[in-house]
C-alpha cells in the first residue's frame, strides 16, 4: 500500500513537472500567413513593414517573442501617432481662427485641413467626431478654448489614431495571444494527445494512486486530522508557500497575460475539439484543470470523510455540478450553436449576466436563449430566497457552486488556516457587503447603458469604466488570484468569505429568514476548539457552542465539518421550525441557575 502511494506521488510529481516544463517547450515562428490570418488588411502593411526582423525568425522562448511584439506594436503606434496627430502648429491655427470669431465652428477646420491629403482628411474628420460638442460654443477666455482643443486632440491620439491605424490595448492584447498561439511549433503542437497523457494523465493516475491507499493506511473511518498543523503543506510551510505561489502566478497569467500560457492551451486543444468542435481558449484550459482538480480532490474528500454520509453526498454533488453544469453542458451548447450558459451560475457572482452582449446573445438565441434568461432571473429572484429559506445558503455554497466546489475539494487541506478573530469578522462584513454594493451599482450602470445608450451614470460614472474595474479587480483579482491563490495562506474560502457578492446575498437571507441553523447540543460542549479551527469561513463556532447557543451566521456555508470534527457530538446542521432558532444561550445540566448564560 505504501509502495502504491509512493509510486502515485512519483507519478504525480513527474506529471506536474512535465506540465511546468511544457510551458517552456515550444519554439515560435511568426509567418506572414499567421499575420495575414489574424490582422485586418488595412493594418497588415504597416505591421509587415516594421516587423521585418520578427517574421520567420526562430524564437526559442515566448518571452522574447512577446517582448518583440510589444516593441513592434509600440513602434507602429508611435509612427502612426506622429503621422496622424494634430500638430501644435495646427492646434494653434485652430485656436486663432476660432478665438477671433469668439465662437467655435467646425467649419473653420475646412480652412486648415485639406481634403486631398489623406492625413489631413483624417485629422478633420477626427476633430469633427471628437470635437462635435464644441461646435457653436462661445469662448470668452483664450485659455478655455486652448484647453478644449487640447482635450479633443488628446482624445484623438488616445482613442482615434491608435485604434484606427495602430494597435490599441485590447487589440494588441488579443493579437499577442493569437500570434503566439498560432506561431507555436514543436512537440506539443504535433503530439498534444501524448502531452495530455504525460501531464494530466500522470497527475490524475498519480493523484488517485496516492489517495486511494489512504483508505487502508489511515486506519478505520473517522476524523483524520493527525499532523495537519505539523505539515509543510497545510500549515503555511515551504510546500504551502510554493503551492500558493504557483496558484497566484497561474491566475495572473490566466487573467492578465494569457499570451504566455499558449503551450498549456494548445495541449488541451484535442479535448476542446472533442467537446465543442473548436480549439481551446484560456478559459477552456481553466475549466478543464478546475474540473479535474475538483474530481481528483473530491475522491480525496470522500475517502477522508468516508464515515460521514453528509460529506460524501455533498462532495458527489459538487463534483457533479462542476463536471456537468459548469464544464460539459456549456461546451456542448456551443457545439450545438447555442449560447454558452452555466445553468447554476447566479448573478451577482455571475457578474456579467446583465452585460449587453450577454443579454443580446440570449435574446437573439430564440426559445432556449429566452429560457436561459428566465432561468437566470428566476434563480436570482426566486431560487435563492426559497432554497435558502428551506435549506440555508449551503444548498448553493457547498453543494452546487463551482468556487465552493473547488474550496471543498482542492481547498479542504487548508480549511484550518482561516482567521477566526473578531477583527477578521469585522473586516469580512465590510468587505463582502462592499463588494455586493459595488456589484449592484455596476449592474445598475450596465442596465442604464443598455436601455438609454448613455455610458454616463448620474452624469459622473462611466459605466464601461466601472465594469472593467469590477472585472479586473473583483472578477479576476479577488475571486481568482486571491480567492484561490491564497488557499495555502488564508484558508480555502477567502473569496467566499470576504468577496463573493452572491454569498453576501444568500447570507442576508440565511440570517434573517431561514429554517437553517447549527444546533448546539445542550451542555455537551467542552470548548476544545476543533469546530472553530476547522471552520473554513472563520466562524468562531465554539463561542456559541460553549454557551449552548445555536449558530446562526450569515457566512456559514453549511459544509458540516464543524459537526464532523466535534469529538462530543455537540453540533448538528438542521432545517427546523423558525421558532426557537435564535435560542437563548442556556447551558443545560445546571439546575442551580435558570438564567441565560
Amino acid at each position: 500500500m505504501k509502495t502504491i502511494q509512493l509510486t502515485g506521488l512519483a507519478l504525480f510529481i513527474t506529471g506536474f513537472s512535465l506540465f511546468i516544463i511544457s510551458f517552456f517547450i515550444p519554439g515560435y515562428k511568426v509567418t506572414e500567413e499567421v499575420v495575414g490570418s489574424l490582422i485586418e488588411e488595412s493594418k497588415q502593411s504597416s505591421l509587415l513593414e516594421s516587423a521585418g526582423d520578427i517574421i520567420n525568425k526562430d524564437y526559442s522562448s515566448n518571452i522574447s517573442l512577446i517582448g518583440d511584439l510589444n516593441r513592434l506594436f509600440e513602434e507602429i503606434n508611435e509612427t502612426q501617432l506622429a503621422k496622424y496627430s494634430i500638430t501644435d502648429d495646427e492646434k494653434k491655427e485652430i485656436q486663432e481662427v476660432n478665438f477671433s470669431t469668439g465662437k467655435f465652428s467646425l467649419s473653420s477646420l475646412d480652412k486648415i485641413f485639406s481634403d486631398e491629403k489623406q492625413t489631413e482628411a483624417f485629422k478633420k474628420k477626427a476633430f469633427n467626431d471628437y470635437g462635435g460638442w464644441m461646435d457653436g460654443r462661445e469662448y470668452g477666455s483664450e485659455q478655455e478654448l486652448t484647453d478644449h482643443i487640447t482635450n479633443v486632440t488628446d482624445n484623438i491620439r488616445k482613442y482615434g489614431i491608435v485604434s484606427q491605424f495602430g494597435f490599441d490595448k485590447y487589440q494588441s492584447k488579443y493579437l499577442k495571444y493569437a500570434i503566439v498561439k498560432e506561431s507555436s511549433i514543436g512537440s506539443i503542437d504535433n503530439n498534444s494527445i501524448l502531452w495530455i497523457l504525460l501531464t494530466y494523465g500522470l497527475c490524475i493516475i498519480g493523484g488517485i494512486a496516492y489517495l486511494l491507499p489512504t483508505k487502508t493506511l489511515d486506519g478505520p473511518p473517522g476524523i483524520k486530522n493527525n499532523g495537519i498543523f505539523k505539515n509543510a503543506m497545510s500549515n503555511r510551510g515551504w510546500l504551502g508557500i510554493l503551492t500558493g505561489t504557483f496558484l497566484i502566478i497561474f491566475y495572473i497569467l490566466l487573467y492578465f497575460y494569457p499570451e504566455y500560457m499558449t503551450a498549456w492551451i494548445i495541449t488541451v486543444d484535442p479535448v476542446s475539439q472533442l467537446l465543442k468542435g473548436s480549439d481551446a481558449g484560456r478559459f477552456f484550459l481553466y475549466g478543464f484543470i478546475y474540473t479535474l482538480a475538483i474530481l481528483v480532490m473530491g475522491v480525496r474528500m470522500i475517502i477522508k470523510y468516508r464515515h460521514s454520509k453528509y460529506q460524501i453526498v455533498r462532495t458527489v454533488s459538487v463534483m457533479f455540478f462542476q463536471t456537468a453544469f459548469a464544464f460539459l453542458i456549456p461546451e456542448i451548447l456551443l457545439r450545438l450553436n447555442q449560447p454558452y450558459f452555466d445553468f447554476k451560475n447566479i448573478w451577482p457572482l455571475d457578474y456579467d449576466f446583465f452585460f449587453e452582449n450577454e443579454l443580446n446573445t440570449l435574446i437573439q438565441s430564440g426559445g432556449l436563449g429566452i429560457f436561459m434568461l428566465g432561468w437566470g432571473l428566476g434563480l436570482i429572484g426566486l431560487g435563492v430566497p426559497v432554497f435558502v429559506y428551506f435549506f440555508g445558503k449551503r444548498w448553493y455554497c457547498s453543494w452546487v457552486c463551482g468556487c465552493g466546489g473547488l474550496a471543498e475539494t482542492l481547498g479542504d487541506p487548508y480549511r484550518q488556516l482561516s482567521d477566526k478573530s473578531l477583527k477578521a469578522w469585522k473586516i469580512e462584513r465590510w468587505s463582502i457587503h462592499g463588494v455586493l454594493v459595488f456589484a449592484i451599482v455596476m449592474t445598475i450602470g450596465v442596465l442604464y447603458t443598455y436601455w438609454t445608450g448613455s455610458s454616463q451614470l448620474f452624469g459622473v460614472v462611466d459605466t464601461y469604466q466601472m465594469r472593467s474595474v469590477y472585472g479586473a479587480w473583483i472578477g479576476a483579482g479577488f475571486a481568482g488570484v486571491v480567492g484561490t491563490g491564497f488557499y495555502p495562506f488564508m484558508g480555502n474560502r477567502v473569496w467566499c468569505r470576504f468577496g463573493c457578492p452572491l454569498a453576501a446575498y444568500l447570507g442576508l437571507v440565511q440570517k434573517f429568514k431561514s429554517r437553517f441553523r447549527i444546533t448546539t447540543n445542550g451542555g455537551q460542549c467542552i470548548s476544545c476548539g476543533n469546530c472553530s479551527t476547522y471552520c473554513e469561513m472563520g466562524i468562531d463556532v465554539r463561542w456559541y457552542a460553549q454557551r449552548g447557543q445555536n449558530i446562526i451566521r450569515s457566512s456559514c456555508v453549511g459544509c458540516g465539518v464543524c459537526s464532523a470534527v466535534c469529538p462530543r457530538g455537540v453540533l448538528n446542521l438542521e432545517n427546523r421550525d423558525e421558532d426557537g432558532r435564535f435560542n437563548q444561550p442556556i447551558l443545560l445540566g445546571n439546575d442551580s441557575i435558570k438564567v441565560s448564560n
Partner: protein
Amino acid sequence: MQHTVIIGNGIAGITAARNIRKLSDNKITVISGETDHFFSRTALMYIYMGHMKYENTKPYEDWFWSKNKIDLMRDWVTSIDFAGKNIAFKNGSSLTYDQLILATGSQSNFFGWPGQDLKGVQGLYSYQDLELMEANTKNVKNAVILGGGLIGVEMAEMLHSRGIHVTYLIRESHFWGNMLPKEEGTLIDNHLAEHGIDLRTETELEEILDDGNGHVKGIKTKTGEIIDCQFVGLTVGVHPNIDLVKDSHIETDRGILVDENLQTSIQDVYAVGDCAQLKTPPPHRRPIEAVWYVGRMMGETVAHTITGNETKYQPGVWFNSAKFFDIEYHNYGTVLPECPEGCSEFYWECSDKKKCIKVIYETNSLKVKGVNLFGIRNRHEVWDRWLSQEKTLDHIIENLPEANFDPEFFTHWEGEIQEKFNNEFPDKNISVRKKGFLEKILA
C-alpha cells in the same frame, strides 16, 4: 469594590470569573502558574496530534480579559493567610482578597510503583505534562500505558497518531471497568484492537525498569512478563490538587470540603471544580466529580453566591461525553458498571460492533434511569426532559427518533432498536420507525 481572587484558570475558575463579571463590578484577579490564558484542558491531546495549535485551544481571544476587566496573573501561589485574607506568591509578592475561589484542579495519581520517577515516565494533566510528553516521546518506538480511563485512551490515541506502538495495560476485564458495563467496554476493546493498540486486560504493573541511565527501558507485569518500551504513561486517575491548603486549617478530605453553596469551612473562601469535594452530594451524584461540565456548573453557581445571591449547587440530570478513537460516547443519567438491584437493562448493538445503546430502567415500573450511547449522537435536551420526568422505557424507545442528533443522511438505527424492543416486550408493541425514500437510496 470587592476584590475576588480566583486561584486556577481552568474551566471552573474562568467560568466563575466570567459570571462574576456579568453580575457585578467586583475587581477580579485570576491566578495561574500553568499558562497565561485559559485553554481547554480537554484539547491537550489535539495539540500533540497536530489537529490544533495551542492558540486554537484558547476559547477566548487574548483581548477578552482586559476588555472584561478580568486581571490575569501568571505565578504560583505558595501560601494563603486565610485570617489576613492574603496570598503569597513564588516571586515574593502578595495579594489581598475579599473573597477567594479555589479552583486548583487535579493531579495525576502515582501509586508508588518502583521506577515511577524514571525519565520517560509521566502522567498527563497539565500543559507542562504535554510539553514533557512531547520531549519524552521523541524517537520512541514502543510505549506502555497503564490505566483504563479517559486519559489513558487519549494518550493511546496520541501516541498512535505518531506511529508509536502502544501496549495498554488495564487492571479490569474490559476498558474503563469502573465506569462502563461489560458490553460497552468490550465494544471499545475491539475498537482499540482495530487501531492496533495492544490491549492487555486484567494486567497489573509490578515495576518500571531502568536502563541504567535513569531512563525507562521497559516494564514488568505482576505475572513477570517484561515489555520493552521507552515511554510509560501512568493514567490511573486523578485526585484533587489540594497541596496548597492541606496543611492549613481549611477542612479537607480527599478534596477541599464544601457545603451546598460551595463554601469551604472558612468564610469567604470557596472551592469549585475538580478540587472540591461536596460534603453532602445530591442523590445519584458523587462527592468529587472531576469532569469539565461539573467545573463549569460550579463556577457558574459560585458566581451567584459571591455576588450576593446565595445559590445552592444543584446539578441536574448527570450527563457526560467522550470519544474513544473514532467512537463517540454520550451518557445521560446513571449507568453503573453493574446493573443495580431492581433495575434491568435494554441493550442493542449494531452489527458493525461500533454502535450501541444501553438503557437502564426500573424492572417493575419501566422508569428509565440512564442511557449509554456509543456511535450514535443523541440530544441532551430530550434526554434531560425524559429522565427528569421519569419516562418509561417503552415511551423512550418509541420516541427515540426525537432524540437523534446524528448529521443528515446518517443511517437511522431507531427502527432496528424498536424492533429489538418489541421482540423483548411483545405485549408493548410500540410503533417502529419507517425508512424514508432518500434513506433507502443512500443505505
